[in-house]
């Protein structure tokens, strides 16, 4: 069940009031929310629900067993088992064919004949997201940062439908405490919720779809276009993926707010970043901090000298790349970002060693850094978007070799969509706050009329049918 569909509207119109009616009876509410979330998830494939239930039971079992023992060795063994089981499930569904295919290619090139071990599986939607959330629950308990909660609370935490299929990746300490005491129905952040839902819907349905129509054919056959068109397509893809993913998670956060729960922010104007480090603090923020807290810091972070810091960054980004998909293009994408972060860290430490100052908050130097960062991110996105490394290299090569090639015109709509989204990256936050302040003061009927017109415009400018969503494949 995708958010921007009629089916979801019907589902939510049933779940929303019942959520508030049942809120006072906590146990009933938990059963209800778990059931609603499983219905939402099973709408793709009922077998996915079994997988989610299995993950819930297994992880809760490990968490409880870990909390009942004080022996460090046993706790560590339990943690290792949890990680192996979770990553094993993820590996089977997501990475098995990738590794088998890569291995077979290598062995085949060496002259060995190997039987096919490829498996015919469907990748369960959102498995990467809920696996990481389950891992953070067990690891936090291992570290003593969190105590096991009841299985019903953990089940709701893991399956809560707004974040289930595409994040944000929530940590238990952020969501579980919100279950008790229940949110106050008199003070709900509805204005922010409507703004996030309407804005997210527009980004997803209108901007991302319009840009996909331009981007797909160019990335499919770059040699049929001029360098200028390919360059605009590279920028357009950067905007498309941002509109697509941030639009969907904005809707998720807004829907959770209407149910009375606050999920963490996932994007914070990433293309206004003046360094790659800043970009990764603003892009898919909940994944970045997961990788930081559960991978980079345990690897030693920046505590073991400069070289180890760089190695840790590279490892974190390589695995972060692979998290996105089972393909060498994602590994290259992760490596490029890792390399960029290493250079960034080296540059900052060199500047600090020389007693240099940070660039001013505005001014030509900062704008130059923003331009450089944006272009580096766009370059890396080419590997993220292409199916093969050779395809990405070919496309990048085409940026320099076909400036005089006759090519179709770039539509005004595409340029407008790119410009509009880039503009939002640099607009002061207070504009949004002021608009929300005005909106919150008008009557519910007037609010409904404003939202109705917004829906009509989104529907008019968007396509018929449901546009596919990029991050579901992850």
């Amino acid at each position, binding site marked *: 069940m995708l958010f921007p569909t009629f089916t979801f509207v019907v589902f939510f119109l049933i779940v929303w*009031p019942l959520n508030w009616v049942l809120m006072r009876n906590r146990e009933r509410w938990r059963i209800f929310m778990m059931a609603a979330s499983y219905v939402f998830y099973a709408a793709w494939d009922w077998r996915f629900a079994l997988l989610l239930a299995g993950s819930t039971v297994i992880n809760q079992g490990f968490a409880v067993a870990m909390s009942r023992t004080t022996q460090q060795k046993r706790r560590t063994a339990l943690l290792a088992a949890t990680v192996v089981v979770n990553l094993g499930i993820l590996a089977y569904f997501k990475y098995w064919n990738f590794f088998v*295919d890569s291995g077979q290619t290598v062995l*085949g090139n060496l002259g060995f004949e190997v039987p*096919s071990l*490829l498996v015919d*599986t*469907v*990748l369960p939607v959102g498995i990467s997201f809920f696996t990481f959330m389950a891992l953070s629950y067990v690891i936090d308990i291992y570290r003593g940062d969190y105590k096991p909660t009841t299985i019903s609370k953990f089940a709701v935490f893991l399956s809560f439908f707004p974040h289930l299929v595409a994040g944000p990746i929530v940590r238990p300490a952020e969501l579980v405490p919100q279950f008790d005491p229940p949110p106050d*129905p*008199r*003070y*709900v*952040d*509805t*204005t*922010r919720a*409507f703004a996030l839902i309407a804005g997210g819907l527009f980004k997803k349905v209108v901007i991302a779809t319009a840009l996909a129509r331009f981007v797909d*054919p160019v990335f*499919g*056959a770059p040699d*049929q276009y001029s360098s200028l068109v390919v360059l605009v397509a590279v920028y357009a893809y950067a905007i498309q993926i941002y509109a697509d993913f941030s639009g969907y998670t904005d809707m998720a956060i807004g829907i959770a707010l*209407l149910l*009375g729960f*606050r999920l963490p922010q996932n994007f*914070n104007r990433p293309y206004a970043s003046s360094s790659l*480090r800043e970009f990764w*603090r*603003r892009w898919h*923020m909940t994944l*970045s*901090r997961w*990788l*930081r807290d559960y991978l*980079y810091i345990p690897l030693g*972070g920046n505590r073991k000298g400069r070289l180890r810091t760089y190695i840790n*960054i590279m490892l974190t980004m390589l695995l972060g790349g692979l998290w996105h998909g089972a393909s060498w293009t994602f590994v290259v994408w992760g490596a490029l970002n890792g390399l960029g*972060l290493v250079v960034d860290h080296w540059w900052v430490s060199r500047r600090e060693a020389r007693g240099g100052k940070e660039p001013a908050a505005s001014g030509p130097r900062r704008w130059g850094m923003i331009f450089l960062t944006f272009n580096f991110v766009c370059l890396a996105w080419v590997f993220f978007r292409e*199916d093969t490394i050779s*395809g990405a290299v070919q496309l990048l090569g085409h940026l320099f070799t076909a400036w005089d090639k006759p090519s179709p015109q770039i539509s005004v709509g595409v340029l407008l969509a790119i410009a509009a989204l880039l503009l939002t990256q640099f607009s002061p*936050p207070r504009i949004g*706050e002021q608009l929300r*302040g005005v909106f*919150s*003061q008008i009557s*519910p*009927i007037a*609010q*409904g*009329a404003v*939202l*109705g*017109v*917004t*829906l*009509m415009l989104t*529907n*008019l*400018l968007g396509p*018929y*049918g449901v546009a596919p969503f990029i991050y579901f494949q992850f």
Partner: protein
Amino acid sequence: MTDEPTTDEERRARRGRPAEPRSNLRPIGHAMIAALVALAFASVLDARALYKSAVTQPDGPGRDVAVAVTGALQAVTNFTQVSQLRQGVASAIGMGDKDTIDTNLNLPVKTAAAVPPAAIKPIFSPQKKLKIYMGGDSLMETVGMAMEQIGPRTGVIKVEPNDFHISTGLNRPDNFNWFNNLRSILASENPDVVTLMFGDNDADAFMSGMAAGAPQIQSFGDAAWEQEYRRRVGGMMDLALQKPGRFVVWVGEPQMENSDLNAKQVKLNSIYKSEAAKRPGRVAYLDTYELFTPGGAPYSANLTVDGATKLVREPDGEHITLDGGAVVTGAILKILQEHFTLQGALPPSLSLTQ
């Protein structure tokens, strides 16, 4: 990777302010009223679009109910002129036709004449490239992608942008009018070869755009259904063949994992094959059923291509992977070599076994 993220919420928290000013918080009842008003208001403004969405649904009781409800809503909004607001905005931005349901097929009435085998095959070279168009439903996506990658490498083939449209076919022009789409592509791009692939969304008895007085279809595969579907398949071929010298490759459906769906694809393939046979020398039928499962083998997602096992089918048991698309592309190129003299670097034929 080492610093805490800085979000708007955190900035507010640092200044000792809540995530959202308390004055912006509202009772949940207000939000529910606002949401219901918004949905009602948008439904009224979007009545024509909702009706079109309902009409283009798959056939069944759900569609009947949706058409009845949205039809009534549309009648009211037309009467009260409320729908003019959306129509006015749509016209102003050049999208005036967006809500129009066009089921007119406008097919040629004459079957394209057969052409005897030419003594000298038409010649194409790097100076005079063969322009190929790839169109179809979602199964064409990876086939077209593979052709876009492999075709230009020959130096003699120019591939038009892949024209696949997900969830479309020949039986529902209300959903996507392939006949108008092909007509407009042929006029604007003028390809030498038209490659078409349909069927996955046509395994259904319901058809829109039926000619007046056409016999009533009772079920998939009955005489009335076959007559109408043949008219559409042949019509698509004849549309493409209106230009002398143009060649059509009709790509048949591969074996499907689901046996019920597969039985319907076998029926559809028999129509594609026989309609192609009615236009000898101008239409070639590519049997992908045999290509992916040679010698009547049962369904398999894997295929041994030149000695290496490749995953050629998607896990859904219907769609084709990019490796599978390359296999189909290889077969298309082989057909083209039989029909044309292509003075380029054509890849060698693939050896395929189960």
